């Protein structure tokens, strides 16, 4: 520790003392946890109505909403990632038509609120038919899936484009020099790496998609927030149903984090974890440098 003290006297002052900074950090974090934990315990003991919390009627209503949200999330998630790949490919297209259309798509769906998009689809589109003639009777859930898919395809598309851009140009050049077509090189060489690069951003976006389902309450989808609002306005007790809401959303988002982590580990063949990883990480760079210099 003598070195630390020495360096402190030279320059940097207190911030040079690693152990002290570490202790302060631990103290702050511990204090934070204690304060929040205490508040939570206090709320749970004084505000939450145990009988209402355990009521099978309420549990049933929340569970039904939970299943609906999971269904909507799974479908919109698959659709938006699939569509997002095409949006991302459109973004890097060398054709000016495709490129501009993809850019316009992203600008629109990223640039307007999801709430607005949901209103357009749920309230606006059916009004294109005469009164009472709109053919889909239960439009709320389909409208929700369409809205979430269109919106999140834009974000996934940008993540994919970022992932592709992050792949060194040499990868494409090397593949082309082996006689591959551009499309084939993209599919077999660039995209697997781009996918890995984009995965964290896509996972992040899909978790936001889960939380975005809370907006669906305004188009009469009986999802989790909607159940909360109904119970709160009947029972005039916010905290008890809020506990349910918190637990259910975390159940979805945390298991989704697990899935994303798993996918990232699976595709993490490029890290410095093993021999192959080390090779594939460094060789493109050195090839690149060698080729250019």
């Amino acid at each position: 520790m003598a070195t630390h003290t020495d360096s402190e006297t030279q320059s940097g002052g207190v911030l040079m003392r690693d152990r002290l900074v570490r202790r302060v950090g631990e103290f702050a974090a511990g204090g934070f946890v204690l304060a929040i934990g205490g508040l939570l315990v206090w709320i749970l003991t004084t505000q939450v109505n145990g009988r209402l919390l355990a009521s099978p009627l309420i549990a049933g209503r929340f569970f039904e909403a939970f299943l609906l949200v999971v269904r909507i999330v799974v479908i919109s998630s698959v659709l938006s990632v699939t569509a997002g790949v095409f949006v991302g490919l459109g973004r890097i297209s060398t054709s000016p038509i495709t490129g501009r259309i993809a850019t316009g798509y992203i600008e629109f769906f990223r640039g307007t609120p999801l709430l607005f998009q949901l209103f357009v689809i749920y309230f606006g589109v059916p009004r294109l038919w005469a009164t009472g003639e709109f053919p889909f009777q239960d439009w709320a859930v389909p409208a929700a899936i369409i809205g979430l898919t269109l919106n999140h395809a834009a974000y996934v598309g940008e993540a994919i484009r970022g992932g592709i851009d992050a792949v060194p140009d040499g990868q494409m050049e090397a593949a082309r020099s082996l006689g591959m077509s551009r499309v084939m090189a993209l599919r077999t060489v660039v995209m697997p790496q781009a996918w890995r690069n984009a995965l964290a951003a896509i996972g992040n976006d899909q978790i936001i998609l889960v939380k975005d389902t809370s907006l669906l309450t305004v188009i009469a989808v009986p999802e989790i927030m909607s159940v909360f609002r109904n119970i709160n306005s009947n029972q005039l007790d916010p905290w008890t149903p809020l506990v349910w809401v918190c637990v259910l959303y975390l159940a979805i988002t945390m298991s989704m984090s697990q899935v994303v982590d798993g996918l990232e580990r699976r595709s993490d063949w490029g890290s410095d974890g093993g021999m192959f990883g080390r090779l594939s990480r460094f060789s493109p760079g050195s090839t690149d440098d060698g080729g250019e210099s």
Partner: protein
Amino acid sequence: MPTDRRVNRRQYLSTLGAGGAIALAGCSGGGSDGGESSAESGDEGGSAEEESASAEAESTTAPETVTIGSDIPYAPFEYRNEAGELVGFDVDIAEAVFAGELGLEYEFQETAFDGIIASLNNANFRIIMSAMTINETRAEEVDFSDPYFTAYQTVLVLDNGEITERADLRGVDVGVQRGTTGEAAAEDLQAEFDGELGIESYDQITGAFDALLNNQVSAVINDNTVSAAFAAENDGVVFLEGDGVAADRENAPDYLTLTIEEYGIAFRQDDDAFREEVNGALAAIREDGTYDEIYGEYFEG
């Protein structure tokens, strides 16, 4: 939320001698109208809200601003006209009661109906005027003024012959506004039909009306006056016919009525003195004809 006191340039105000109240926002002191309120207004002004709860004698006669929580739009009770000005039955009653009778300033604050009682008790505003039906559950949380309006829960359907009587509602989806007595009436009907009734709850009543036009629900259960305003604007929409609970009542609508309800102004439970004042003012505007004038403007002819 922006308020708009100036919209209500109605004749009755001048008859009350409260012309000052409408001239300019901020100019309507307690002095512009005579009567009981200005007599007491000598106390210190400022934060009269707290005082009124503790000291009944001082009451609330300082020219303070009464903030009114309301779920807007809910035509014809509170909604914005094409110019964006706040108008409606509740708005005019507020003008007559607070500006006219009590010499207070007031402003409307937009809020969601489903959390409106909690907001009141959290002191986000002082009172609720939002076409709110007096019922027991709500009365446990808030105190109501004397009723100032009678409403009936009614059923709106499309005029396509698919639903022509009460029994036809079994098995269909109905739209309601979340947290309203319309929703409660729908739940009662659902129980009566052994669960064979789908209920879709919308944030605002306009959402439920849209859903009816968009073929998302087959009927909307809501207060008669609001539904009537909507039906009048849309040719394809009619009230469901039939004898309802209000069939024997005078002045009751001739279409199916599910329940009878009275609207009240909601107060926090520690606001008794102010509630008494408002009750007095409500009685006064009923007596001098102001109430009938406002009523006539929105609901007759």
